């Protein structure tokens, strides 16, 4: 399959997933105990104007399906709704915060890829104590929740040594990247440990393949064999895990953004849930789902470059 029809099919798939997700997200509001109105306005109730505004915004007077269709129609026109807490368009709210989360997740993904692949390769090739050490560190990293890592990083590198700021996203540009270092590390520890394990296993397996013997029998340099035959072939499991990891980082960012008080989508989501700002909750979840699906589609396209035996669309 060539690229264009494949992308079209993926786009169709994405729209389908979005449709289902949007229905679930929308329906959640009505699954919550009590009337939607009470749920949104909270136990204190609201002024008649607020009740009117909420009724109007959520089309609460219409039947459920009709309301869903109306909401969907708004979405399609780019209208994500209006935040009753921030008194702002949700799309504006999201677009002002998506950058922080994107930077955080990208930085974490880079750290995970570099550290995970390097550590796993080192463990597999070095063996002995190097393997033991890496495996132990990986086990520790894998079992430590990101908020614990975050708190530990803050107390050591921010409060103790004073090398990094304790919280906030900085003032943009390099300053933001600087502010994001500790959060990105906290976000990457567990995933880097997991990737290290996967890389180690993949390198050991690929290193034992017959074609690696061929390369050795041809007198090729060991470094070349590791890079072009062992690591290159290990990329398939590595990219799979990396793709899944990045997709889950988007959810993991929720925790870390709260620990480090970053104004990203994650902290917005948590606050929106606590404050029952349902338009925001719905929109943020939709954005996260889109990101998840897009990352997976990118991984699928990458496969075809990594392994010529896989053709686009053959691996579902």
């Amino acid at each position, binding site marked *: 399959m060539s690229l264009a029809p494949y992308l079209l099919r993926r786009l169709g798939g994405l729209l389908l997933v979005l449709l289902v997700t949007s229905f679930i997200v929308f329906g959640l509001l009505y699954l919550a105990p009590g009337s939607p109105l009470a749920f949104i306005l909270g136990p204190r109730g609201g002024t008649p104007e607020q009740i009117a505004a909420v009724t109007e915004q959520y089309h609460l007077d219409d039947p459920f399906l009709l309301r869903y269709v109306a909401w969907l129609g708004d979405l399609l026109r780019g209208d994500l709704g209006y935040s009753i807490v921030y008194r702002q368009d949700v799309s504006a709210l999201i677009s002002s915060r998506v950058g922080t989360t994107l930077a955080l997740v990208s930085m974490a993904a880079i750290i995970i890829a570099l550290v995970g692949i390097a550590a796993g390769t080192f463990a597999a090739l070095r063996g002995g104590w190097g393997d033991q050490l890496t495996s132990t560190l990986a086990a520790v990293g894998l079992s430590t929740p990101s908020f614990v890592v975050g708190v530990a990083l803050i107390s050591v590198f921010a409060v103790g040594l004073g090398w990094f700021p304790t919280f906030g996203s900085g003032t943009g540009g390099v300053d933001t990247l600087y502010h994001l270092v500790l959060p990105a590390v906290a976000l990457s520890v567990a995933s880097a440990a997991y990737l290290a394990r996967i890389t180690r296993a993949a390198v050991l397996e690929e290193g034992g393949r017959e074609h690696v013997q061929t390369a*050795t029998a041809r007198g090729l*340099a060991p470094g070349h064999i590791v890079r*072009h035959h062992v690591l290159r072939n290990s990329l398939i499991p590595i990219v799979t895990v990396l793709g899944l990891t990045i997709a889950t980082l988007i959810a993991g960012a929720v925790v870390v953004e709260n620990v480090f008080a970053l104004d990203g989508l994650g902290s917005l989501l948590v606050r929106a849930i606590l404050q029952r700002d349902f338009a925001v909750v719905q929109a943020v979840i939709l954005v996260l789902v889109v990101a998840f699906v897009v990352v997976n589609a990118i991984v699928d396209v990458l496969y075809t470059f990594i392994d010529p035996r896989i053709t686009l669309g053959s691996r579902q």
Partner: protein
Amino acid sequence: MTEPLLRLDDVRATLRLRGGEQTLLDGVSLTIGEGESLGLVGESGSGKSLTTRAITRMLDPAFRVTGEIAFDGASVLSMNPAALRRYRSRDVGMIFQDPRAHVNPVHRVGDFLTESLVRDRGVDRREAERRAVVLLDEVGVRNPEQRLRQYPHELSGGLLQRVMIASVLLAEPRLILADEPTTALDVTAQSDVMAILEEQRRARGLALLFITHDLELAAACCDRLAVMYAGQIVEQGEHVYEAPSHPYTIELLGARPSIDERVDRLPVLRYDRATHELLKAEAS
């Protein structure tokens, strides 16, 4: 007497296990002269592949190897890493049983063929590809330019084995080790591949260690035969096929199916380990 190209003298490969030791090559001695071909036959598990691995020093580190392996007078077992790489790269070429498994599936056929030349010989890619095309043509691969751009999974087993042969010839070695090069191929491809290997080898005057369990095939294309059993060479020489002297060889030759008799299973030989040990004890 002049030194042969390859000389194995009382080579032993011992596997260290928790419960003791297992000697899998038990005093193998053989020689191959420049341009000469030796057929190494024996049942599966007799140590034929281990012998080729010993020759290229590619046995698992768990093996202890003793004895002498000399290539053109140089001791293979005492080569330093650089000399060993040079020896593997320029002096010996390995052709494996299963080309599908022995060629990296993620690189193009052209990369496989030119890899050594470009990496280790300083040949530039264009020139290496030109040489690869010439060789593919010589081993009977049609549309060689197009093949270079294809991936291994797009080629049949027979075609891929020709690619493997071409890759070995490209390195211009003096000795080829062919470990059952046709066993994994289908019957029609088998004779073609064998004919090509033999033709190219003779044209270039290369020495060959040809491993097979097909005694007749080995007899047909090799100058000399060596028969292996349980890690030992029980008999070798020019007339093994016509006039076998060891009981195992005699039985092996007697057991081959006659032409007009179809066989559904391989005949069971009466020669076994116990007989082998008994004969060894008598001989010494």
